[in-house]
């Protein structure tokens, strides 16, 4: 009970102090204690002290005091190691389950920093151990390996160092407010082309099939969020200009309604299949809508649309 309350209180304080996307380490946000090795070191210092006293051996006694001084000064060295260091979480990219989400950090030390480790309270195994930095800004990408789809808070990052000698444990926290998604891992399946009336009535979009992809009517300037599949690379090669092909026809050539209820399997399988279909439809440049039990995303295309669909799938 008490430890629970204490933990809550502690978390509260940490949340208050460290909730930010960036942190500059200084006296009020660095925590320093001797590490496990440090206590072992002190234990041997004590053992040396006992032997030095019992044998009245000034040299062994001196070694014992030397160890004590090393341990005390290590606390200071450890503190100064992180002091002035600035860490900023720029972004965490979303990705499919089983692949890496990437947390992008910007690390700006004010002096050389040794043995920096970054841990996370929930995501284990960050590959960021024992890294040394010299004085200039560094961009660091940390891979987060997630295998469960969902919407994630960036959570609590622990920035830690055992410099010097591994005798101390110096750490601080970073609690950014970033959000990222882990999309359902795609499972290969048929991309069914839905040209049903149902779709028409639902969306008011016609779904006439035209096979002639080549027949585009005009070129317009590429804007962020448009499907990359429609970029006219030929023009890019000629004029270094990103142009997008607008297809002829009444509206878009093909469109799908990706329906949660129409794919087979358990819920997770369904989501994974839908995930595959979203990518596939985007790849082929088709328009699509997504129907999930709780949400319906209207017909659309382009990166923003794909992202919205995948996020909806992750959250489902």
């Amino acid at each position, binding site marked *: 009970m008490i430890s629970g309350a204490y933990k809550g209180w502690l978390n509260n304080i940490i949340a208050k102090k460290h909730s*930010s*996307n*960036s*942190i500059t380490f200084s006296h009020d946000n660095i925590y320093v204690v001797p590490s496990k*090795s440090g206590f*072992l*070191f002190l234990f*041997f*210092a004590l*053992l*040396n002290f*006992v*032997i030095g*006293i*019992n*044998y*009245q*051996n*000034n*040299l*062994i*006694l*001196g*070694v014992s*005091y*030397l*160890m*004590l*001084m*090393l341990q*005390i*000064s*290590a606390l*200071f*060295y450890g503190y*100064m190691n992180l*002091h*002035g260091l600035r860490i900023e979480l720029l972004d965490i990219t979303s990705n499919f389950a089983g692949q890496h989400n990437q947390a992008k950090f910007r690390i700006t030390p*004010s*002096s050389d920093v*040794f*043995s920096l480790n970054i841990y996370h309270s929930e995501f284990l195994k960050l590959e960021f151990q*024992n890294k*040394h930095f010299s004085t200039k800004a560094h961009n660091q990408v940390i891979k987060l390996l997630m295998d469960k789809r969902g919407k994630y808070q960036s959570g609590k990052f622990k920035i830690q160092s*055992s*410099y*010097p*000698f*591994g005798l101390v444990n110096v750490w601080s926290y970073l609690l950014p407010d970033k959000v990222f998604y882990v999309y359902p891992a795609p499972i290969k399946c048929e991309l069914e082309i839905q040209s049903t009336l149902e779709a028409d009535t639902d969306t008011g979009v016609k779904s006439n099939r035209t096979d002639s992809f080549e027949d585009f009517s005009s070129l317009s300037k590429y804007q962020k969020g448009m499907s990359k599949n429609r970029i006219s690379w030929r023009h890019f090669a000629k004029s270094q200009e990103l142009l997008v092909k607008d297809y002829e026809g009444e509206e878009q050539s093909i469109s799908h309604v990706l329906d949660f209820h129409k794919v087979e399997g358990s819920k997770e399988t369904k989501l994974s299949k839908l995930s595959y279909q979203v990518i596939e439809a985007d790849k082929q440049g088709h328009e699509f809508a997504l129907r999930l039990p709780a949400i319906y995303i209207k017909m659309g295309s382009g990166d923003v649309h794909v992202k919205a669909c995948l996020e909806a799938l992750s959250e489902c």
Partner: protein
Amino acid sequence: MNANLLVERNTLITSLIYCAISLLLFQSLGYVFCVSIVLVTIFKLSTTMGAVKNPSKLVVNLLAVTVIVVVFLSLGFKNTIEMFVAMLIGACALKMLQVSTAKQATSAYILNFFTYPCFYLFSQNILAFTFVAALLLFNLSQLFSVSHNLPIKVAYKNSLKKFIFSLPLAVAMVLLVPKLPPFWQLPNAKSANTGLSEDVDPFEITELSRSSELAFRALLPTAEMFQPPFYWRAIVHDQFDGKKWQMSRLQGVGLQRTYQPMGPTYSVIAEPSNTRWLFTLGDGVPASKGMNVNNFGTIFQKKLSNKAVQYEVSPVDLDDARLTRWEYGINTQLPQGFNPRASALASKWNSETNSTQEFITKMKAFFVEGDFTYSLTPPAISEKHNVDEFLFSTQAGFCGHYASAAAFLMRNAGIPTRLVSGYLGGEYNQQSNYYAVYQYDAHAWVEYYVPQLGWLRLDPTAWVAPNRMFGSLSDLAQLEQQFKDNLGISLASFSNIRAINWLRLQLEQLDFHWTRWVLNFDGKKQSSLLKALFGNKHNFLPALSVILILITVFGGWFAYLNFRNWQKQPKEIRLYNRLLDFGKVQSGSLTPKQAIELLKQKFPRAQSELDEFYELFELARYNTLRLSNEQYKRLGLLNKRIIKKAKIK
């Protein structure tokens, strides 16, 4: 650098260090153990080179059992401390076979901070000190190297700074932290193999092996009573069994006589020896704690010490004018049926003389007129009648021969006589005013009893080699060659080359100060140092000063580091931060412009100043040109003004 490779390399070096330590301690730990450590090291070497696979856990455990058995068999339970150290080094060496991760290596290197100083249990001279200090520094670098995954060279540079920072603090603590008495008794390590032998058995020795090792040093006050020759008494031998003179059974029994003090005290710093019998000039009683004195007026330790001990002696005149009947019996005792010719000679002299003095004169004449020579390489005498053989045929020997023969003759005449062994002479060090006495100064002579007068000294060797009485044996010109042959290779054997002799004396002096001030820095010396430092407040000030020193050093250092960091920032940033701190604005996610706006809202009075401040700040930050001095001044002024105005509110 690859972490595993780094660990591999470091552990290999450490294995070699263990091997070196064991070899250096081989006299204490025994050659069986040393050989097994060498084998383990070879094993490690071959696994590193890839010749042998890394051993499995089972193999290492089997090796551990083997090492334990080896230690038990070769050292046994008697040498507790040797066994303990051997086990420790053995365990560490085996651990090095197994270590593969940085974490394991870290704990191994931390353990080394306990393992390496164990060397000090066996030897504490300056060389040993430097050796272990270097090992500890290197070990620290290795700890740095494996825990931060950096090459040893970089790690060494980094750790050296930290080591040097802590060193003077540690020294200050040794000096100032009050010395505690031992918590409990621990077994001591045997560190010395030299020293006097408890039995004098000269006759079978053909070559007196003597070492140039130091026996002890003496600091004598300038008083008339301290004049050469210096006969340092240590062991009394009063039992002759026909072959050797055995140590008296009363050697370790406490003094039961009265005595009168005779003069100023002197101090002796005795090197570790294989016996606990210490050295006094004539008769003396100890003036320092932890020492005992026996009926012969010589001082001894309660326990064998493995380090140099310093003790004070006050010279006394023992009240030994009377001899009890049993004492008389002991000191005239002779085995029957030995040395008939010598016995006959003694009886003849006895009948011709009326007093002990006359008897001695006769005996002296016999030695001086006879063809006796002093030799460090006498022929061996293995006959039963060894004294006869020496007196009438070989006629060559060293102090043991002459003392034995003289004592035998005198006991035959019924004069209570005993053999005393100790040291004669000493090398005077003019710079530091002490006498250094070496193992090769060991000597044996005779004491005889005269009613009403007590025990008197007689040195029959002096009749044959009168020069031996003054100065050290090393000064004897005619024995120079023999002496050097006996010493083997050492600095002392080259002492006729001036530069080397100078070097030897300097080293000797350094060692003297080391022993006196570092190794023997005990509670007594500490309190006198503290008295000199703190006057009569020395009872509580030292402890306080330790704490104060630590606080000031660490506090000052910490402040300096912070200041240095602070100074690294340009002035405008420092001023800007000061404003933010003052206004309690969290700048984490704000641009300077936003922050200043926020300040403006907080301190409406200072709006114009804040605007100007921001202008200058912007100029300084985002222009490539540096601000002029006037502009910096203005910035500082604005900063002050803003704070002032804000405070008025």
